[in-house]
């Protein structure tokens, strides 16, 4: 038992160091590719890093004393969720801790009482509600295919779990767009300029608080891509290459979707995410349970 907790602590430290670096690079690539898709040159690869460094140097000003604490909690729990995942820990626990981090982020926005931030927070809550069933089905599907929630079990699996859970995988890709806050599902806040809510959930966040949000976002992206890669890992060491390639391809697909679809209304977001969850997730789980 003690060892298990030590692994999680080590995993969290490793994740806290590596994920921001990888996530920052990923964000840079994202901006580069998006620019190319829009016929622009785009900023340099390290632009996201320069942005965050500048934010960290800004004056310490905020609308209240609590917002920053909540955001820090959100960041810490994102790192913990990543740590649980990369140390081969319990996938469901990782999912729950991500939800906790999302809750703190939502509370940070609500605490400002800015109408724009509040609407952004309400939409973020809706988004969590929209993707949560599918994310739970994803974890359940992994458990049923693998016989354990422990991610470490993957490394001695005889075959990648994608063979049993491809419908769940497709469903998960659908809600991944919400989790990555990509258009058409970027209701709560968007990296694009065309946002009707000022800056949505982050409206009142500035300086180092906003920098933390950015870093959190990078880490989340890495964690979610880790969940994608997980479907393609089995006992063969070479499978890691395949898994990383798939994760990158999925991210490219998300960038393409981001640049080609207009934002939808919340009704469509909720309805489509839940229908996808019940059809792809429900059917896949039924198949795993009864056949």
């Amino acid at each position, binding site marked *: *038992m003690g060892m298990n*907790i030590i692994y999680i602590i080590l995993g969290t430290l490793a994740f806290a160091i590596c994920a921001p670096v990888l996530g920052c690079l990923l964000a840079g690539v994202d901006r580069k590719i998006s620019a190319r898709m829009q016929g622009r040159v785009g900023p340099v690869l390290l632009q996201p890093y320069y942005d965050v460094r500048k934010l960290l140097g800004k004056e310490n000003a905020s609308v209240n004393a609590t917002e*920053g604490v909540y955001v820090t909690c959100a960041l810490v729990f994102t790192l913990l969720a990543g740590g649980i995942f990369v140390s081969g*820990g319990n996938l469901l*626990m990782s999912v729950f801790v991500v939800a906790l981090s999302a809750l703190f982020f939502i509370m940070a926005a609500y605490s*400002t009482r*800015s109408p724009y931030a509040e609407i952004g927070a309400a939409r973020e*809550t809706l988004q969590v509600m929209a993707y949560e069933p599918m994310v739970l089905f994803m974890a359940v599907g992994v458990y049923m295919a693998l016989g354990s929630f422990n991610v470490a079990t993957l490394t001695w699996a005889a075959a990648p779990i994608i063979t049993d859970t491809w419908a769940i995988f497709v469903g998960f890709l659908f809600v991944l767009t919400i989790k990555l806050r990509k258009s058409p599902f970027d209701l709560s806040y968007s990296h694009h300029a065309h946002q009707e809510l000022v800056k949505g959930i982050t409206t009142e966040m500035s300086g180092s608080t906003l920098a933390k949000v950015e870093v959190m976002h990078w880490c989340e992206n890495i964690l979610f891509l880790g969940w994608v890669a997980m479907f393609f890992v089995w006992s063969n060491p070479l499978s890691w290459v395949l898994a990383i390639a798939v994760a990158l391809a999925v991210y490219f697909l998300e960038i393409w979707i981001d640049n080609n679809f207009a934002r939808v209304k919340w009704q469509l977001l909720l309805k489509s995410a839940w229908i996808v969850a019940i059809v792809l997730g429900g059917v896949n789980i039924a198949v795993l349970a009864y056949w």
Partner: protein
Amino acid sequence: MAIIGFLILFPLVSAAALLCIRHNLARRVVVCVSAAAIVAASIALVAAYFGYAAAFEFSSVAIDYVCTGLSVVITACIVYYGIRYRNVWAVMLALVQFVAVIVLEYLFAHDIHEKIGIYLDPLTLVMALIIGIVGSGICVYALGYMDDFQAQHSGQKDRRPVFFALMFLFLSAMFCVVFSNNLLWLFTAWEVTTVCSFLLIGYTKTEEAMKNAFRQIIMNLLGGLAFVAALFFIVVNCKTLSFAVFLQMGVSRPDLVVLPVTCLAFAGLTKAAQMPFHTWLLGAMVAPTPTSALLHSSTMVKAGVFLLIKLAPIFYCSASSASILAAIPSLMVILVGGVTFAFCSALAISQSNAKRVLAYSTVANLGLITACAGVGTPEAVWAAIFLVLFHAVAKSLLFLCVGTAEHHIGSRDIEDMDLLFERMPRLARFMMLGIMCMFIAPFGMLIAKWATLVSFVDTHQVALIILLAFGSAATFMFWAKWLGKLAGVAGLPPNQEEGTHRSEWVSIGLMAMLALGCCVTLPLISSYVVEPYLHYLFGGIALRGEAFTAGISSSNLWIASLAAAIIFIVLFAGLGTTKARKVDVYLAGVSVDNSGRTFRDSLSAERTATARNWYMEGVFGEEMIAPIGTICSALVIIIAFAVSAISLPGLI
């Protein structure tokens, strides 16, 4: 044994005393002393019988006569109110039930003498702690609350003696429910809780209160009738009045007890306010808040799920029985519980009345407990017990907070709780703790839900997995937006916490400590209380002599426990001052007043921005989805009864 007697009889003595006392200070003393005595006795009971399961040879003809006497009193009470308020159904059901009970006791069960009247096991100990500590805490809270209540309703007659007497009578009846092995005693106590809650719901005697009280009594009398029907079957076919013996028979031959188990499960479902009977619990919120807290957390509905959890081993064995019919009660309980969880969680989204949100959340969580009991595997029962425990402490905390907030801000609407974080800083933090305990990792309820999910997956309950996933998503929505409302901070509005009674703070603090204590010590409770119980319960059937392992590994439980402690510290110590320069929020103009959200727009006119939470009535409104859930679960129950009637030997 003496402690059990004390726990059942002492609240009765207190109730009798409180009924006579009209002086406020004397009542205060009696309530506080009695509550302390009950808390001490329930802790002493746990200390004395920690980890044991014991049965006590205790039978007395006198008690049987007392039970008959109580039946007469109960019936007389319902008939009196039924005639006075012209409610034919209540009168008819009460009379039918009375005749049935008398016939059962004197014609059928007359020769059966059950020697083992009282028993206890770790589950009853957990229940005793919940009833003893949470229940008495609520009684103490009621002291201050009812003072305010009486002051606000000064035109009405002071009926507080009756109120407090009923509260303690309720506790006594609940202790009787969890300790009785004699089914007739159990049934009598069961009916006493029904009548107590009837009287408490109708306390204000307004038209609405009486209407809701009668709805409660009619639904629970239906459950009571089903209970009597089960007793007839058990007496005639099993020739026993012992709950333990009946459970054993059920475990060895679940196909022979399909009808009585269906009837008992139905009684449990009505008492646990499962769809389609959830409306009685929603109606119960017209009562003063301590009543709601008592009904929702430690008594009444918990009696319903307690009965269902007791039946869990039969549900477990029925799944592997040769007869398909044997699984009927289990399927009924699973489906009704699952549907109730998903629908009531979704319904809570559309509510802005805090007590109504709490009521829907209670019904939903009871649904989850019900579904776990129906699944019946050791892992599911582990989850069910923890759901009962955490729900009791967190929900009572929330009700007490809402009650106090209501008296200070004059509203129980969540929209009016805007800025509560500053207006009532201590209370808002307690409320936030309660809300977090209800729905988010790493707090207890979510850990229990996690175990629930694992048990559903292990037993391949696909329908339940789906209902659980969507219900949990809805749960996140309605709690998170309430939490957000509480978290708002702007300027320094006047503190409205002044004048909160000390008794209220004591009880709220007690509940908060209990909630946090249970979250942090969850791994210990699991390994020292719940796991031995499951071993005792399932050792011979599901576990086949092997040790029980929970669906969640102990290292994960410890991580959750640690994280809960950290969040608690952040909530109560970390949210303070900052060195940052304070700036105004963005309001599409120059801010004038941040807490009022007023700003000067581009034409120099003062404007006020407003923001409300999101209730999505068009998707989750009561008239949109409540009928679906009601019809689905009603159909399930009707079909289950029809099919289990077929199983009656000799019918076909």
